[in-house]
């Protein structure tokens, strides 16, 4: 299903134009029409999930399904602003519903409380976009595969304390890009007046904007996660140098998620830290890169979901989803990494 064909028929109403005025002035009416036709599945309703939900619901997508099978706990109070404190102990997706809906009454918001692993492929294929937060690699790999097979735009993301990542697999993605080329500037006015210096220098006419169609191809998550770094060659070394440390931290965290079926928890601070340090060594070794790729103290900064980090990663992730469904502008291919301990915010292409 393409957002394109069905959206063109409906026009934006005056109410929508008033509400979305400031963003329509940025991305245009066509993009807004496509946005309001998009149905999104958001997996994981913790801090990052809340940020993503907020951003895309405000922007005016058609529908958002929030899926989470876990219950809210005290950690949510530090980043999950969609869950009222009175709802701690209840299902995260359901507890997020009411506040999500209040953000924009024009968006259809629903909750799903079962595990994503119990959902069949047909369910996944019914969305335009799937954004998976807080998932381990096995789940992510399956989701990516199903999305690729069904033309669903796939995003993954997570926040670990001061660190965060976003991954995108849009398969082959077509988009429009505005290219501005200044018109031939007005000729110098050489008036006959002598002595009177003409202040009318050549001036630019309004730049002419043309929209160009482009296309971009993304590697699959499987390719990405299996990427090895050949440090024997100088080219391999160079390639490795361009990969931000947050990629390797993400790999360590994914390993932890896979093993423990949960994020590191502040209630198990000491034992989880020990485990993370062990996994750090193991993961880096497996990838054939040195220990220095992940700073030793990383395990002091990777607990919980720090609200401002969720805001940064959720902001970028939300904007990428908007870009993808509106088919406007070049998407980031294929990772965004944020490291709050050193101000790093990189877009890196891995696996292509």
């Amino acid at each position, binding site marked *: 299903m393409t957002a394109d064909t069905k959206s063109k028929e409906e026009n934006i109403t005056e109410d929508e134009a008033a509400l979305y005025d400031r963003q329509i002035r940025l991305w245009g009416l066509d993009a807004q029409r496509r946005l309001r036709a998009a149905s999104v599945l958001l997996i994981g309703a913790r801090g990052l999930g809340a940020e993503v939900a907020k951003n895309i619901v405000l922007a005016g997508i058609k529908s958002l399904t929030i899926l989470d099978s876990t219950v809210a706990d005290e950690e949510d109070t530090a980043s999950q602003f969609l869950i009222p404190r009175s709802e701690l102990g209840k299902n995260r997706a359901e507890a997020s519903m009411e506040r999500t809906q209040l953000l924009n009454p024009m968006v259809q918001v629903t909750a799903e409380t079962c595990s994503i692993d119990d959902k069949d492929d047909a369910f996944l294929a019914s969305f335009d976009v799937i954004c998976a937060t807080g998932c381990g690699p096995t789940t992510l790999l399956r989701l990516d595969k199903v999305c690729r097979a069904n033309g669903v735009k796939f995003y993954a993301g997570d926040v670990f304390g001061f660190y965060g990542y976003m991954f995108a697999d849009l398969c082959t993605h077509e988009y429009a890009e505005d290219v501005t080329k200044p018109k031939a500037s007005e000729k110098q006015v050489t008036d006959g007046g002598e002595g009177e210096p003409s202040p*009318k220098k050549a001036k630019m006419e309004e730049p002419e904007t043309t929209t160009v169609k482009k296309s971009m191809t993304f590697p699959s998550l499987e390719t990405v996660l299996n990427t090895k770094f050949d440090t024997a060659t100088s080219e391999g070394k160079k390639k490795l140098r361009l990969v931000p440390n947050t990629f390797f931290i993400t790999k360590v965290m994914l390993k932890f998620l896979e093993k423990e079926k949960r994020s590191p928890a502040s209630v198990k601070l000491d034992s989880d830290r020990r485990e993370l340090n062990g996994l750090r060594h193991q993961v880096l070794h497996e990838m054939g890169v040195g220990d220095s790729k992940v700073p030793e103290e990383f395990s002091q900064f990777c607990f919980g979901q720090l609200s401002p980090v969720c805001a940064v990663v959720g902001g970028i992730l939300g904007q990428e989803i908007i870009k993808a469904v509106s088919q406007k502008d070049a998407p980031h291919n294929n990772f965004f990494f944020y490291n709050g301990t050193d101000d790093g915010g990189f877009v890196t292409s891995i696996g292509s």
Partner: protein
Amino acid sequence: MAAVLNGVLEQSLAENVKNSKLLVVGAGGIGCEVLKNLVLTGFKSIEVIDLDTIDVSNLNRQFLFRKEHVGKSKAQVAKESVLKFNPDVNITAYHDSIFNPEYDVNFFKKFTLVMNALDNKAARNHVNRMCLAADIPLVESGTAGYLGQVTVIKKGLTECYECQPKAPQKTFPGCTIRNTPSEPVHCVVWAKHLFNQLFGEEDPDQDVSPDTEDPELTAEAGQSALETAAKENEVGGIERKSTRVWAMETGYDPEKLFNKLFRDDIKYLLSMETLWKKRRPPEPLSIDSLPTDIDSSNQSAMRDQRLWSVKECFDIFGKCLEALKKELAAQGDSGMLVWDKDDTIAMDFVASVANIRAHIFGIPMKTRFDIKSMAGNIIPAIATTNAVIAGLLIMEAFKILSGRLSACKTVYLNRVPNDRHRLLIPCTLDPPNPKCYVCAPKPEVTVVLNTSRFKVGALQDKVLKSHLGMVAPDVEIDDGKGTILISSEEGETEENNDKLLSDFGIRNGTRLKCDDFLQVYSLIITIVQTEKLEEEKEFEVVGDLSELQPKEETQTNRSKDQANGSKAGPSHAAAQDEDDDLMVVEDEEAMEQQAAQEERSSRKRKASDDTGATTTSKRSKVTDSAAAECDVIEIS
């Protein structure tokens, strides 16, 4: 329940977060996001101030507000909304202007740090000065569309907000607006000027009639045009009479106004033949044969989004005149309308007039939607950019609270990654500019003007308040007698306002001692006498006299390049080529206000040009496109 969880933040930082006291200036786009982050992160004591009320167009990003809140105080509603996220926070909300003298240095001193989430230069300048005076660290932020930035200001350690001159605002020469428009925006500016001439505050700088002093015209040509026109146009009633008076006498008759503005004045312009030697000459319109066709295929159903024909524009023009006439009359004899982009009729008026004029000059006509962007100087704004910037703002605050001020950065959010793959670009903070006219130990500035034409009132309003950002200046002439030129006490020096500077013996080299008690700011102004400044400028402010000479040193600023790991090239130009040079940004409302203000006040502010500003190098920090009104605090 503690939002600061064990193990998430280092213990000492967590303690400092809990014990700190913050001021957030602005509860708009960035402010809402900042407040959310703060209460979730575990800050316990927050004060927030915003003068503004909630508008429908805020709701796509200012997520603490909903439709039912429209018209209410942003600060108050934001407070109530975030308290639901965390009820254990002490929040004080002020629905007020930060310029209010209640918020004096002592008020600022009680905070651990201040966060700016503002949208206009005037308020940013003021908070900058208050934080310098109180010696409190300030985290400064701004967004525009996809672009954003955060920086940290600390007295004595970093540049202050005013250390570097901001990119000048774009203005258009009067003769372009009045005689030779070539772009849609020229017609929009003219249409706003016409609104003010007809209904608003009359401003001689906003004359809409043909300009015979156009430098393009030789003296002779101008003169002959005048003579010809005088003969030709007596019927049209174009003699030098105030447009307002004339329009009122006709009862704002649409046909008469149309004939004068779009037929006779255009014929008059045509008589200035020199102007049209290399330009397409304008074509005067006749009411009887207005084009009804539209040369566009994109005819959306929405009135805002489709092009109007010239005939349609004329009809709208007529309806607007009728409605605005009534509005003006309802205000009584000395009534005056203020143009507002959100006032349907005022906006319709500008859209129709701008398009008629565009048609005459062969300039593409625009939709009302596009004209509103230009006329209102609307900066687009989205939730995601604000969210990212607000997040980064807290990250800088963490460094300050950890006592790691030296680790603070200016961080830019770009639209696409630079060639080192950075989407977020951190730059080292520069040390203060020793010649800064705000944060230097003894601030000094040079003002170039014509003392025998410049009035004291203009010195106060245009130079000291508008340009130099003072709120309530006191000025004493450094003449050995301590003559008081301007007093902030009401009624003390008003009689000076209409006098010329030369009447007080002010001449080349005179020094003025200026003080602003609220900002705890003293500035020495040296006057440089000049007969005439270029481009219709009334005055020019230069940091110090050496700036009047050609620039030699450009090498001050290598540090930011190095911070990025980019090569610090030998020349400035090389550094600019790195794509991490900054994007300059500004908040939306700023632009909007700027436009409205631009027309009202006679300050020359320029519509900001984000891309243009990038060429000045990454130094320009938050460019203020916009200097908006002095009494508004709000933000996007």
